[in-house]
């Protein structure tokens, strides 16, 4: 991919254009009122566009090339031979799981969409939901999902089984989780997989599926993103339940004193 500043800027502008047209149209023809602080808002939009452009160029320079090569090297037959396990065993790929886990965690911490949602959640919950702790929880969920996802590709077990089990867990958790965390938890699933995570994860999945004998990239290479949208829901619901337990516990302790 081209990493020239103007090329990436143009791509980002293309991404933003429909939104600007839509908001402009509604603002001018339907609302017929000017927005408060138009200059500040315009400045904000320019910040977002330039910020995303720099962000993408930076990732393209620093992470994507190495990420691709790493995914390839970690699953290459010569590297697997040194693992001490037979290449047919899923255990031989332990570095792949560790890599998937750590890269999932690291990229999610830097995910702009998640920063946006965590910021808003912190704001409207009056600080009750910590921005950092929400992001760490979600990142942990993505990390786990990628480790399990690579395990699935390596073992060749069917994707839908995992997804269905995940859904059942989410449904059960929904029954017990505090009401205020539910919508946020569901949203956390959707925001984890955008700018940063998708390219790395897609490269990892398709790379693994093409290296491991007997895997078909079309059938087995996909699905990592789906995992990465499911596990954070479970993680955030769990986080909500955990907070609830802590509150309950401290309350009970106070009663004792």
């Amino acid at each position, binding site marked *: 991919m081209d990493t020239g500043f103007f090329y990436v800027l143009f791509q980002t502008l293309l991404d933003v254009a*429909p*939104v600007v047209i*839509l908001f402009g149209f509604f603002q001018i023809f*339907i*609302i017929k009122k000017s*927005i*408060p*602080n138009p200059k500040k808002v315009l*400045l*904000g*939009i320019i*910040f*977002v566009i330039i*910020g995303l452009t*720099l*962000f*993408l*160029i*930076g*990732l393209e*320079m*620093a*992470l994507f090339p190495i990420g691709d090569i*790493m995914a390839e*090297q970690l699953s290459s037959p010569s590297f697997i031979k040194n693992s001490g396990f037979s290449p047919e065993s899923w255990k031989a790929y332990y*570095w792949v799981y560790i*890599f998937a886990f*750590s890269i999932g*965690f*690291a*990229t999610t*911490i*830097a995910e702009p*969409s998640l*920063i*946006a*949602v965590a910021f*808003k959640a912190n704001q409207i*919950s009056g600080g009750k939901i910590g921005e950092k702790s929400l992001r760490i929880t979600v990142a942990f969920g993505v990390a786990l999902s990628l480790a399990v996802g690579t395990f699935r590709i390596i073992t060749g077990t069917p*994707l839908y089984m995992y*997804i*269905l089990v995940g859904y059942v867990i*989410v449904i059960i958790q*929904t029954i017990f989780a505090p009401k205020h965390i*539910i*919508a*946020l938890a*569901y*949203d956390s699933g*959707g925001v984890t*997989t*955008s*700018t940063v995570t*998708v390219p790395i994860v897609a490269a990892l999945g398709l790379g693994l599926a093409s290296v491991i004998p007997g895997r078909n990239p*079309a*059938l087995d*290479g*996909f699905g990592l*993103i*789906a995992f990465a949208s499911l596990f954070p829901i479970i993680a955030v619901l769990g986080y909500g339940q955990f907070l609830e337990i802590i509150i309950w516990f401290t309350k009970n302790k106070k009663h004792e004193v």
Partner: protein
Amino acid sequence: MDVLPIILVVAFFQLVVLKQPFPNLENVLIGGLLVIVGLMLFVEGLEIGLFPIGESMADALARKGSLYLLLTFAFALGFSTTIAEPALIAVANKAAEISSAAGTIPNNPEAIADYAFGLRISVALSVGFSIVIGVFRILKGWPIYILIIGGYIMVMVMTIFAPKEIIGLAYDAGGVTTSTITVPLVTALGVGLASIIKGRNPLVDGFGLIAFASLMPMVFVMAYGMLIY
């Protein structure tokens, strides 16, 4: 702070596990710096730009009192941001390649382009549709889990009937539809609406739009697969 984990992971695997020298160390350092500056600008821009326009639009539309206008806006927001989404274009093209290789569509560029475009339209329609339903939910105050669990059941049922080749792709399509620009705007719209309407709690009712928008594309892509194969 935000980028430190990435640098640590990459350095650890490159130097300790793979035992290879760092290629283009200066590229990595400059790239890391750009990522940090970019994120700072992005967050600043969110606060003074994207969140305020999303919320003022929610406020203005709610005050107008026209359900029709609000839902039209919701649909247009979902549809327009998805149809141009680069990640979706990439996934759609990939899907078209796979189906032409499998022989389900003719192996010529025109048929492949048609297929990819059809896929993009069906995903964009599904996102527009889910934002409409999601906004309607906020207005009515339905609990979010009804929609989500309903969506899960649809996904499960569709999985049984959909062709095997499309399932992994369909599951992934849910994740790629919500871009970095869409998420803050949709969040601001939902939270803005839930703060204005009496009896709604922004935390309980305001979130959830994105969740539904990542669920429906799975159903639509599997349906599209069933039509084509």
